[in-house]
C-alpha cells in the first residue's frame, strides 16, 4: 500500500501553472468563443450589475482586437438604481454596442402584467425576457448566473437548454462532459449560457480588482437614505417605499448585489475601495443573496420555480 505524503509548495511558481483567476478567465473566454462559433444570434443579458460587467469585459477580451459579435439585452424593471442605468448607457456607448431594452413598466402600463402587492418586480422580469428572446430571435442568451449563488443554481449547466416557452427542466439537462458543450437546439428553442458558472463572489471581486474594471458607485460605501424592511436596508424611492411605519435614516452602506430597488438590500459598510470591499467579503458570514435579496427567500424552491418558468 502506498500513501503519498504531500509536500507543501506554492504551485503558482511551478512552470506552466495558471492562477485560479487565469484558469477561470480562460474557461469563460472559451465559452464565449464556442457560442460565437456555433450560434446565429447570441445576446448578453446586461444590467450594469457587477456580474454582467465582468461578462462584458470577458467578451471584449475574447474577440479583441475585433468587436464583440453580440448585442446586449437589459430587462428593465423600472425600479433600477439610476447610477446603474447611467453606467449601462455609458458602457454601451464606450464600446459601440447595441442595447435592446425590455421594459417591465411598459408591460404593466399595457395591462399585460400586474404589479404585485409588495411592489417587488424581479419575478415580473420573466415574461418580458422570454418575449424579447422570442421576438428578437435570439438563440443563445448569456447570463451572469453563478453556481455558487443558490442551491437550484448549483444544478445549472454552463449550456442550459430552454424549450420554446423558455422553460428549464432540470431532469432534461444534458450532461456536461469534458469541455464539450452541446448547444444543438430546435428552431424556437434557445440555450442559456453561463460563462461565470464556476466563479464565486470573491473570484468576481478579485477579477474586477486585477483587471481594474470600473463599477457603478453604489458598490462602494456611500451615505444613503434607507429604511428597514424584512431585515434589509432598502433605498427610499418612488417604487413604493417607505411606508409610514418605516422610518427613513441616513446610513453608510454599500450594495453586494444590484437588482431591483424593491428587493435589493444594502449592507452597512465603510469600504470605499476595492481592497476594502474584498476584505469585507472574505470575512463575511452571509452569502451574497442571503444578505441582500428578498426575492430568493420566498420559499425553499423559489429559485427553482422561477428558473423553470424561464427566469435567468
Amino acid at each position, binding site marked *: 500500500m502506498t500513501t503519498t505524503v504531500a509536500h507543501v509548495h506554492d504551485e503558482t511558481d511551478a512552470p506552466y501553472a495558471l492562477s485560479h483567476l487565469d484558469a477561470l478567465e480562460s474557461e469563460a473566454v472559451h465559452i464565449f468563443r464556442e457560442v460565437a462559433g456555433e450560434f446565429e444570434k447570441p445576446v448578453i443579458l446586461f444590467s450594469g450589475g457587477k456580474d454582467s460587467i465582468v461578462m462584458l469585459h470577458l467578451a471584449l477580451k475574447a474577440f479583441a482586437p475585433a468587436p464583440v459579435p453580440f448585442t446586449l439585452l437589459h430587462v428593465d424593471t423600472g425600479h433600477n438604481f439610476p447610477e446603474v442605468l447611467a453606467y449601462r448607457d455609458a458602457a454601451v456607448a464606450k464600446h459601440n454596442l447595441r442595447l435592446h431594452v425590455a421594459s417591465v413598466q411598459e408591460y404593466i402600463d399595457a395591462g399585460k402584467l400586474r404589479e404585485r402587492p409588495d411592489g417587488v418586480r424581479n419575478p415580473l422580469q420573466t415574461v418580458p425576457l422570454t418575449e424579447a428572446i422570442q421576438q428578437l430571435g435570439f438563440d443563445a442568451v448569456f447570463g451572469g448566473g453563478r*453556481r455558487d449563488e443558490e442551491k437550484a443554481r448549483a*444544478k445549472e449547466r454552463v449550456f442550459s437548454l430552454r424549450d420554446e416557452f423558455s422553460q428549464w427542466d432540470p431532469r432534461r439537462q444534458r450532461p456536461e462532459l469534458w469541455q464539450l458543450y452541446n448547444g444543438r437546439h430546435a428552431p424556437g428553442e434557445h440555450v442559456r449560457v453561463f460563462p461565470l458558472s464556476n466563479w464565486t463572489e470573491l473570484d468576481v471581486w478579485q477579477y474586477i480588482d486585477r483587471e481594474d474594471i470600473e463599477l457603478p458607485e453604489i458598490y462602494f460605501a456611500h451615505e444613503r437614505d434607507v429604511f428597514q424592511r424584512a431585515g434589509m436596508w432598502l433605498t427610499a424611492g418612488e417604487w413604493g417605499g417607505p411606508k409610514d411605519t418605516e422610518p427613513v435614516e441616513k446610513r453608510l452602506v454599500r450594495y453586494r448585489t444590484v437588482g431591483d430597488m424593491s428587493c435589493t438590500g444594502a449592507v452597512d459598510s465603510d469600504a470605499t475601495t476595492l481592497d476594502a470591499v474584498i476584505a469585507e467579503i472574505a470575512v463575511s458570514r452571509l452569502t451574497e443573496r442571503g444578505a441582500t435579496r428578498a426575492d430568493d427567500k420566498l420559499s425553499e424552491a423559489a429559485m427553482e420555480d422561477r428558473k423553470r418558468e424561464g427566469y435567468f
Partner: protein
Amino acid sequence: MTTTTEQLSATTLLRFATAGSVDDGKSTLVGRLLHDSKSVLEDQLEAVERVSQDRGQDAPDLALLTDGLRAEREQGITIDVAYRYFATARRRFILADTPGHVQYTRNMVTGASTADLAVVLVDARNGVIEQTRRHAAVAALLRVPHVVLAVNKMDLVGYQETVFASIAEEFTAYASDLGVPEITAIPISALAGDNVVEPSANMDWYGGPTVLEHLETVPVSHDLTACPARFPVQYVIRPQSAEHPDYRGYAGQIASGVLRVGEPVTVLPSGRTSTIAGIDTLGQSVDIAWAPQSVTLRLADDIDISRGDLIAPSASAPATTQDVEATVCHVADQPLAVGARVLIKHTTRTVKAIVKEIPSRLTLDDLSQHPSPGQLVANDIGRVVVRTAEPLALDAYADSRRTGSFLLIDPADGTTLAAGMAGESFASKAETAVQADEEGWDF
C-alpha cells in the same frame, strides 16, 4: 481552520469529484469540507436548521445543503451532478458532487470527465463492495489522474489500523490493475471530523495527510502540458478595421501541451503547414503559451483555416481518421443501436457519423465483456466502432483527455447520446460468458 484575507493571493484551482452514496457518508464529508472551510455561511446553515426542525429532525441535516431541487428534497435523493465551491488559503476548489444512486453511472462519468482527482468513499464496516469497484472503474476509464480512497466511519470500527490497511490494500491492488496512476488511501470519520480537515487524534498510526491537505497539495494539470500541443480552432478573428486591416487570428483554448512563437505547425485535416508568427493571450502578446490558456494564434502564412480545424506542431501532429474505435458511456434515455446515424462532436468539430458496430458491452462490477449487445441503453458502457463522414484529428484518450474525448449526438433533437473515449479503455479482461442483464446499478 479559518479563512482570512490571505486567500486573496493567487492560488491554483483544483477540480475534483466525489463518488459514493449517502450511506457511505458522502453528504457528511462534503458538508464538513464546506463547513470547515467557511464555505457554508450563516444564512445557508440557518435555512438548513429551519427546514430540519420543521421536519422534526434532531440535528441539522447536512444533505439539505447539497440537495437543490424539490424532487430531491422530497425523495431524499440526489438527482443530478451539483457543483460546489470552496477555498482555502492555498487553493480554490470546484467539486462535482455526483449522486450515488441507481442508474447514475452517467453522473459519475460527467463529474469525472473534468476532474483532476476523484474521492471514492467506502464504509469501513463494509470494505470494498461492488459499488466501490464500479467507482474505481469509472475513475480509471475517465483517466482521472489522482484517486483518493476515503475509508469512512473509522469510528465505528474502533479506529483499527488493520481494518483500514486491508481495505486500502484491496482497493489499491484493484485500481492499479485498472491503470489508475496514483492512489492515496486516507482513514477518516466524516461525522467526528477525523482526518477530513484536522488530523485525527484517534489514529496516530496514520502518518499521511488529511483529505483537505491532500486536496491542497496534489499537483494540478501537469499532464496537460506534458503532452504534444493541440490547438482546436474555435473562431477566426478578423477585425477588418482601419486600425487592424490585416489582422487574422485563430482563437481557441490550448487543449494540451505548450506552443511557442517560431514553431512549425500543421493544420489538420488539410495538412497545410505554416509557422506560429505570434501568440496573443488575453491582452498581450507572448512567446509561449500552454494548456489550458485561451489564446489567439497568428500564423506566418495566409492559409485557409476555419472553426473545427486543429493546429499542432508539425513534429508531433496526430493522424486523422474516419474510423473511430472507442469506449462510450451511454448517457441518454433512448438506446444507441448499430446502424444509428449520429453526429460526433470532437473538440470544435462536429461531423456526421454512423455507428458501424457495437462489439461489446462492459459490466463494471467485474469488468466482464458481453459480445455484440446490438444496442446500448442508459448507463451502459461499451465499445463502439464509428465511421465518420469527414476525417477527425483524434488522439487516444489515454494520451489526451481533451482531444481524445467526443460526444455522440442525436441529429434529430440534439440530445447528447454518449460520452466517448477514443482508443483502448483499460487493460481489457478476457471475455466472459454472456450473463443476464442486471437491472439498476446502484451508482
